[in-house]
């Protein structure tokens, strides 16, 4: 898997390169500013990108803008966006195109190497990986149709799906069997009227319906 990496902090960039290369990824371009990132994302060999939201020159949200721009040019291009803080607003903007393959995590989640690398792989495979903090704020909303038809347990399962967890991980988190999780997920798909499809696509669509993007 060939990646574009954008991170302006030299130490963090070096750390991310080491971490990703150590887990079987190839870093095609590692850049530290927005103009170079735009160039790097034009490379047809790039298969996914790991981006910091804040980059020079303006140090605001150019990483996010670059992610949205590249996904307009190449729909479904997998991006994992990292940030010092997360906003539900930005998660919605990233997913507004209605296509998955989006990750949006707090930077400190990188500390859990195994989970982070797994997240990048899930995003590259077309899944969504949202930070638990984003999931918690979405969870706090008063639900509207059709999501309100879900039971509290099903909503919990859906939240964990949005975080990009596998059925096994969800089962472990909720201390139930994988079979029970699969049952909940099937019930979610039915209640959200999601047609039979490849399982991963349905998961992404369930998350999109939940966010109402």
């Amino acid at each position, binding site marked *: 898997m060939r990646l574009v990496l954008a991170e302006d902090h030299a130490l963090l960039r070096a750390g991310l390169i080491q971490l990703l290369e150590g887990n079987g990824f190839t870093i095609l371009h590692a850049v530290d500013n927005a103009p170079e990132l735009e160039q790097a994302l034009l490379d047809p060999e790039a298969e996914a990108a790991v981006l910091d939201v*804040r980059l020079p020159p303006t140090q*605001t*949200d150019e990483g996010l*803008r670059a992610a*949205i721009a590249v996904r307009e040019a190449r729909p479904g291009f997998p991006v994992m966006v990292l940030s*010092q*803080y997360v*906003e*539900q*607003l930005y998660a*919605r*903007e990233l997913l*507004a195109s209605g296509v998955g393959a989006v990750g949006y995590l707090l930077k*400190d989640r990188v*500390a859990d190497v195994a989970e982070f690398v797994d997240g990048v792989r899930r995003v590259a495979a077309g899944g969504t990986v949202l930070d638990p903090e984003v999931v918690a*704020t979405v969870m*706090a*909303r*008063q639900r*509207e149709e059709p999501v309100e038809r879900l039971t509290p347990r099903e909503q919990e399962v859906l939240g964990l799906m949005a975080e990009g967890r596998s059925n096994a991980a969800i089962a472990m988190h909720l201390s139930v069997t994988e079979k029970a999780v699969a049952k909940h997920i099937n019930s979610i798909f039915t209640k959200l009227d999601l047609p039979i499809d490849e399982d991963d696509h349905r998961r992404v669509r369930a998350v999109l319906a939940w966010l109402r*993007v």
Partner: protein
Amino acid sequence: MTWRDLAWMPAAFVVSFTINLTVIILALGVVTWFIWWFATPWLMRARAAVDRWFLAYSRTETLEQRVQVLAETRADLVDHSAAELRRLERDLHDGAQARLVALSMSLGMADAAFESEDPEQARQLIKDARSTTTAAIGDLRSVVRGIHPPVLADRGLAGAVAALALDMAIPVPVDAQLPGRPPAPVESAVYFAVAECLANVGKHSGARNGWVHLRHEDGVLRAIVGDDGRGGADPGAGTGMLGVMRRLAAFDGTLSVSSPAGGPTIVTLEVPCVLSSPRTTPSSGPA
């Protein structure tokens, strides 16, 4: 000559004088009415100016009043910033700083555990250190949000308010029409004011819907936060709204609350300011 003749003389004088005076006034009116037609407004204005000169506040008095307002708002502002600094100091001291001390201790103990060749304990201590680091980062993040929320720097007032509204439990549509950005201190004061209003909507109103309007008209930035809750809000009841009022007063801003029992509650914030030229930002997508 009889007494009647004598009486006739003053009577005739009075009658003819009255008739003549009436004729003269009428004649004058007929000849000069168009002068009055045009002159009256000017005369009245001159009269008003004279009245004003005698009766209105003098320039000195106006300036004295202004000085008093400025002195009051400045004192409030100084108090407010001192309190804010104390709060920040406490947050950092009790939060991130304490956790960094714990982190340093865990690492020191891990080091000692390696010395005494107890890798299992060392690993546990490093694991502790990592979770302490995560907590410290979380603390710092919330302190930063309290000083200057990153989304405000990224997206300006409209975007930051939209982000606030999204995090509400109830639907809060934001209708923002700002053709530029207010000065940074005003932007920040209005952001925190709207945040406080929305927090109150969430905590006290029992509302099912809220809304926020942002406008800049006639040199005044106006933010309106409304909800369909139970009403009866008293801006003097909590310290939050008083803090907001003090902070806005530093910019000659005002806050008014309309909250009849049974709702709706409408809070209007007004701050006179100029907007900087619009920054070229792409639209912020669906909310």
